[in-house]
């Protein structure tokens, strides 16, 4: 039996007069992996950032496991609510956003210690586990400035995982990386897929999307133009706009 795990209903968002999301509906089941593709400015990052209230919707609802994320509450209660639900939603950014003043260990243990009251020993154990998972245990006492881009992103993933999130959001996690460093990050994401982590992935990597995702959404100008399994979206898309986008994208990437 499948269950709606992440649910976005009638999502709309405007920045002033500019409408960046128009009536979007999306349901992600537990353990599902959904890729969102589309040209820049299509609203795909905004949609992702709406899920954890980084860019709150103008109207519509976001639900996670039966809890509405974007509840309208008085300021204080809203902050409390949001801080609570965000613990369940891991996010990985294009530019890593590791804390440069903390070591890798500090980056990973900061939030679990502060928010979940873990002892130093527990937090250290957690950091070691997560780093082992992303293959960077030997970097535990390094500062982020000493890591390569790929390593930084793997630490950022470990940091997000340390909060034991129910869902992971990836916002172009490999777009800022040198081509030869993309694979190591993709490997970690594939591994998460095998562990049935629920993931929503905004990406430009069609091959990656095709190989790990259960479902692909193509967005353009604030709407979901087409969605379906990767085999359909990438091989036999119905919509003209999807075909155009994929053609241009393939031409640009020489493949």
């Amino acid at each position, binding site marked *: 039996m499948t269950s709606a795990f992440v649910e976005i209903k009638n999502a709309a968002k405007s920045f002033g007069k500019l409408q960046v999301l128009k009536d979007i509906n999306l349901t992600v089941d537990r353990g599902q992996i959904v890729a969102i593709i589309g040209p820049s400015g299509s609203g795909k990052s905004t949609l992702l950032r709406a899920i*954890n209230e*980084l860019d709150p919707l103008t109207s519509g609802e976001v639900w996670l496991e039966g809890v509405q994320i974007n509840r309208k509450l008085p300021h204080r209660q809203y*902050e409390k609510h949001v*801080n*609570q639900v*965000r*613990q369940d*939603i*891991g*996010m990985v*950014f294009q*530019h890593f*956003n*590791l*804390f*440069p*003043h903390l070591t890798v260990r500090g980056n990973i243990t*900061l*939030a679990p210690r*502060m*928010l979940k009251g873990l002892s130093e020993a527990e937090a250290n154990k957690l950091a070691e586990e997560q780093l082992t998972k992303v293959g960077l245990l030997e970097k535990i006492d390094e*500062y982020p*400035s*000493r890591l390569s881009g790929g390593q930084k992103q793997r630490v*950022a993933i470990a*940091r*997000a995982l340390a*909060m034991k999130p129910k869902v992971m959001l990836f916002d172009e996690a490999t777009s800022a990386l040198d081509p030869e460093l993309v694979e190591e990050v993709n490997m970690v994401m594939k591994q998460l897929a095998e562990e049935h982590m629920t993931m929503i992935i905004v990406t430009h990597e069609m091959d990656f999307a095709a190989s790990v995702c259960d479902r692909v959404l193509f967005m353009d100008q604030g709407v979901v133009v087409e969605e379906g399994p990767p085999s359909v979206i990438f091989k036999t898309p119905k919509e003209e706009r999807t075909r155009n986008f994929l053609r241009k994208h393939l031409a640009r990437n020489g493949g």
Partner: protein
Amino acid sequence: MDFELILRVYPFFLEAAWVTIELSVLTTILGLICGALGAAARMSRSAILRAIGATYVSIFRGTPALIQLFIFYFGGPQIGIQLDAFEAGVIGLGVNIGAYMAETMRGAIQSVDKGQTEAARTLGMSRWETMRKVVLPQAMRMMIRPLGVNINALIKGTALVAAISVIELTYTAQRYIGSTYKPFEMFLLSGALYMIIIYVVGQGINWLDRKARIT
């Protein structure tokens, strides 16, 4: 150049230099407090606090420090606030430099990449936790040098309190000129002592800045 005179009077100048140092330290402390409050107000969510912060900064940066000192010292008693010259000097200069420090601190805090805040908030940290554990530790490092510039200005600015007759370096020089008629020697001596103070403080700032730098 009358070296004999300099040798004779310099112990009195050292004493005066000590007053200048005391003024500088107390003014720095008050300035940092006013600066932190001013910066917090200017970045507050509350529009009223933001307006208060902005007004504070524009008043104290927009008028001569000497006028501010005069208001505290000469104007105070008129509205029932009695301050001696030293107190008026510390408060006047401290509140004044605080307005500059507020802008320095705000600048440093706002120069921390927005992605840092987003990453922390995404993990579930509150605004305050994010400020304390992620933004401030990075901003502090960035504000050491510009705050050093503020402190440098403040030390030189303590000369203004001679105008309300605090017996510090500048006032002492003026007093000895009155009895010796040797302005060149007296001002040179006080200038040299200012320079030593500023040099030492500058080295301290450099040391702090080096220590605080991220690997």
